[in-house]
């Protein structure tokens, strides 16, 4: 458990009423100023002058209408969302005793958003209030799962964040799937999915305001008990607090608040993380700030400040029109990612978040290794042949034989000609991602790390889609090249930021999560700002797809595998040692940093090649090495080939399923790997959880 000691210490300090009141006053004043500026911004010509005249009773009807039906709703939506998320974030952080908890990192927003999209996709025209109920249930389910997986967050931040990101990723995959399949019904939901404050009436705000109020009242009633809970569960029980009931009630209140916010404006990213953190920053200066009856309302006000400031800056920088085209949530997400990175940098390594290295990594016999390898090779052949056979049209093996011999008929020839590169793309990218994942896990000495979670995949995605937007006809080599450079730069950034007199693997993972969130925000921004009507482009790049791949596009992956696999294989013994600890390799004369960098660079390049070929595909790099370790033990000479086989099988299988299940509609492979991979990841977290007392 992370020691709550310093915080408990500040809690015992008396509340300095005057200072606290001053702080509230300052926050309120700042909100008033921001709100005033906020009101003057918009797509119409109504400006500050018109509004001032309006105040003095000389304004035009037009100005009054704009104020009432557009500016005020937008402002109030911002205020409501800010308060709700700020208080929810503060509550969740206290519950998890962890400053990295928030509606985003616990998957609450993702769950609520998925629920809203499902309702939209099936064309159920729910009024705002029931829609909010659906969002609440979705958010609650996600939060419950994540909290259960991380033992209420008390086992340390890394597990919490990883469980949250995994659940959010899986839910995000489902959401993307709905958006893809119900294009007309959900048009507009894509930009909304990043959190927008554009409001046309006060319906959502007025209907959600009582819900938010209910959540706020609930949270404040629990404030005193939350104070006591900070002292630790045991102490709290001794002091007569029903710990379980308090936790459940507080979770319900915070989820209610987050769900209301999602219903009003979509998932506005990271406000719930940033707001309480800002308040906690002031805590050493103002005694008593961490008492929940102070902390909760102040976090709410700070949430309002974050939302309004993001919106004001967005429109001041890019003009009123940008406020329509670019979702406010993108701004808050970038701000939030920076805060997350900063927090992670301060984070002290607390150890137990890492699964014990021995989990399923005992030495197995050589015979087991060969048996597993042969079985997997057979499976791989099966998956490959299966992939060639399945799809919208089911073929038979004899067709493949004819095709190979060059005497298949016209239709079969074409089908197989187009399937072949896709199957190959899936196999090669799966193998590349698995090898990259194995390397990253060994080097980071964290079984929960993977290129996606470290931000490498996201960075490569930003590079690739940026190139596509600037040069729509860019060749695959240019695309891969830029993606590779971007991946390496992103990775270098993550590595450097997390370097603080040594590499803490927990810190690396936390900062990676922050960077990959920022990358996702940037990808969404690029798409929304340049090609808002092109949903397919967005979906393909955000979810990974083998659709329409041709042989030349696979060449970079093949090349990367061909060149880098031997290099990584050459490092296999160093990887074994690196996976142990820092000292053993040093004693044995391994040049630690050089090997580490070399291995990670190779992993980054492999990832970039895979990303530029099939887009952003998650979880393979995580799941494959794990399964490999569980099957054949911890030696990299064995893990590498087995993981590569497993990765290839996984992506190939996902691709075959995606082409078949809803044919003729096609589902990107990346969505299915997320749907297959996320539960496995959740299972891993579950198995390696530290049992609660």
């Amino acid at each position, binding site marked *: 458990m992370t020691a709550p000691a310093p915080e408990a210490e500040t809690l015992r300090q008396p509340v300095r009423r005057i200072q606290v009141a001053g702080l509230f006053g300052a926050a309120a004043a700042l909100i008033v100023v921001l709100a005033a500026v906020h009101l003057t911004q918009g797509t119409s010509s109504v400006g500050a002058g018109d509004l001032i005249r309006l105040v003095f009773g000389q304004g035009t009807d037009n100005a009054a209408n704009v104020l009432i039906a557009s500016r005020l709703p937008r402002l109030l939506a911002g205020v409501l969302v800010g308060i709700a998320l700020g208080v929810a974030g503060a509550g969740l952080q206290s519950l998890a005793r962890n400053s990295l908890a928030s509606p985003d990192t616990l998957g609450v927003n993702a769950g609520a958003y998925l629920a809203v999209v499902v309702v939209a996709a099936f064309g159920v025209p729910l009024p705002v209030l029931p829609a909010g109920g659906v969002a609440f249930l979705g958010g609650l389910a996600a939060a419950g799962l994540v909290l259960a997986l991380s033992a209420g967050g008390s086992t340390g931040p890394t597990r919490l964040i990883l469980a949250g990101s995994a659940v959010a990723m899986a839910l995000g995959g489902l959401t993307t799937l709905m958006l893809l399949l119900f294009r007309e019904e959900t048009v507009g939901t894509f930009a909304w999915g990043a959190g927008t404050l554009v409001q046309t009436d006060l319906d959502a705000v007025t209907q959600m305001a009582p819900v938010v109020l209910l959540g706020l009242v609930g949270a404040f009633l629990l404030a005193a008990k939350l104070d006591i809970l900070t002292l630790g569960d045991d102490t709290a029980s001794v002091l007569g607090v029903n710990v379980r009931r308090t936790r459940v009630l507080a979770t319900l209140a915070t989820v209610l608040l987050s769900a209301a916010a999602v219903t009003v404006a979509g998932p506005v990213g990271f406000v719930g993380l940033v707001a309480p953190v800002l308040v906690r920053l002031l805590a050493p200066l103002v005694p008593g700030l961490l008492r929940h009856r102070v902390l909760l309302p102040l976090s709410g006000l700070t949430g309002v400040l974050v939302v309004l400031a993001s919106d004001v800056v967005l429109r001041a920088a890019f003009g009123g029109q940008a406020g329509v085209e670019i979702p406010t949530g993108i701004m808050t997400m970038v701000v939030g990612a920076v805060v997350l990175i900063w927090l992670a940098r301060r984070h002290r390594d607390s150890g137990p978040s890492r699964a014990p290295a021995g989990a399923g990594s005992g030495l197995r016999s050589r015979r087991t290794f060969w048996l597993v390898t042969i079985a997997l090779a057979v499976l791989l052949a*099966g998956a490959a042949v299966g992939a060639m056979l399945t799809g919208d049209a089911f073929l038979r093996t004899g067709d493949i034989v004819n095709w190979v011999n060059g005497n298949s008929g016209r239709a079969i020839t074409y089908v197989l000609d187009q399937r072949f590169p896709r199957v190959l793309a899936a196999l090669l990218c799966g193998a590349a991602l698995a090898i990259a994942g194995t390397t990253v896990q060994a080097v980071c000495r964290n079984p929960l790390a993977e290129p996606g979670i470290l931000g490498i995949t996201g960075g490569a995605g930003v590079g690739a889609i940026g190139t596509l937007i600037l040069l729509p006809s860019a060749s695959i080599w240019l695309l891969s090249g830029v993606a590779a450079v971007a991946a390496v730069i992103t990775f270098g950034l993550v590595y450097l930021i997390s370097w603080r007199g040594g590499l803490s693997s927990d810190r690396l993972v936390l900062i990676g999560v922050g960077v990959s969130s920022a990358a996702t925000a940037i990808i969404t921004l690029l798409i929304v700002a340049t090609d808002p009507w092109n949903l397919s482009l967005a979906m393909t790049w955000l979810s990974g797809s083998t659709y*329409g791949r041709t042989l030349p596009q696979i060449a970079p992956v093949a090349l990367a595998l061909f060149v880098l696999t031997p290099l990584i294989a050459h490092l296999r013994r160093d990887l074994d040692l690196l996976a142990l600890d820092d000292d053993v390799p040093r004693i044995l004369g391994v040049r630690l940093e050089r090997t580490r960098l070399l291995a990670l660079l190779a992993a980054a390049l492999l990832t970039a090649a895979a990303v530029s070929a099939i887009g952003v595909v998650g979880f393979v790099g995580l799941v494959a090495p794990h399964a490999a370790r569980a099957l054949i033990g911890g030696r990299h000479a064995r893990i590498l080939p087995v993981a590569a086989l497993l990765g290839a099988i996984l992506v190939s299988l996902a691709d075959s399923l995606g082409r078949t299940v809803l044919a003729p*509609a096609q589902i990107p492979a990346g969505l299915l790997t997320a749907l297959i991979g996320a539960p496995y990841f959740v299972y891993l977290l579950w198995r390696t959880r530290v049992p609660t007392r």
Partner: protein
Amino acid sequence: MRRTALALVAAALFGLTACGTSEPTASDTPSNAAAQPVSVTDARNKKVDLKAPAAKVVALEWNAVESLVSLGVMPVGVADTKGYTNWVTAEKLDASVKDVGTRGESSVDAIVALNPDLVITTTDEAANNIAQLEKAAPVLVIRGSDAKNPIGQMKTNLDLIAQAVGKTEQAKQLTADFDKKLAEGKQKIADAGKAGSGFMMADGWKQGSTITVRMFTNGSMLGAISTELGLKNGWTGAGDKDYGLAQTDLEGLTKLPDGEFLYIANKNDGGDVFGGDLAGNAIWKNLPFVKAGNVHRLPDGIWMFGGPKSAGQFVDAAVQAVTS
């Protein structure tokens, strides 16, 4: 153990090869040998050579589908047939037309299974998807629209498709009919004394309390047609370079002058934003054209990005709305 594994491999391989084939290995027979070869240069500046005018055509964008049916060629496969039926009423599809998947990522398997002579898609399709399709069949790529000359682009597209399917005479007729309809519409509007009056064309959708409005600039086909009819577009902002569409919110509508506000909604796909959701809205209620009762919902199913038949439907609907 190892022997078991080997046996398994052998069994698997045996199983895989022993399943027979789906088709005779004989290659396809040349069809329509008497017809003249066709060569068309498409929007990519690429020559598409066909041995004969295409008869079995798959179309992946609805404007191409509509043009094909107008020209008297029923496509064998269409992307998202259900969506087409909802949104495009200008030309009906036969029940036999196969759905080949979504408009963004159509199923190559489904397309190939139809054994088409030609696949028609637009420049919106990613280059590698087109390259992929080209292995299956000749692909004619049209430009979805061109905001610099939307009506011209529509006619160019019709001509390209007509050449490829050998229906150039019909295309001429369709174009002539459309031009005639346009001239007649213009005359009707002039007769009603509405020439030079303002118009706005929009569609929109709602998510939660967020209403997004999409304005049709003069670079959009419907905006250009309205201008041809002698009306003046009240929306002066810029749109995207292909379809001439601009995005705004409700507040952005206050920039609009008085005039006829035309909009398209679809009862099968989401509600009626302008007619329903906005009824009680202060900005909307006080917009000059709303106050004057000049808001017109056009009939459902006029495809905003379609061919001459859809455009003709729009001319009728717009003339009707403006002169009534």
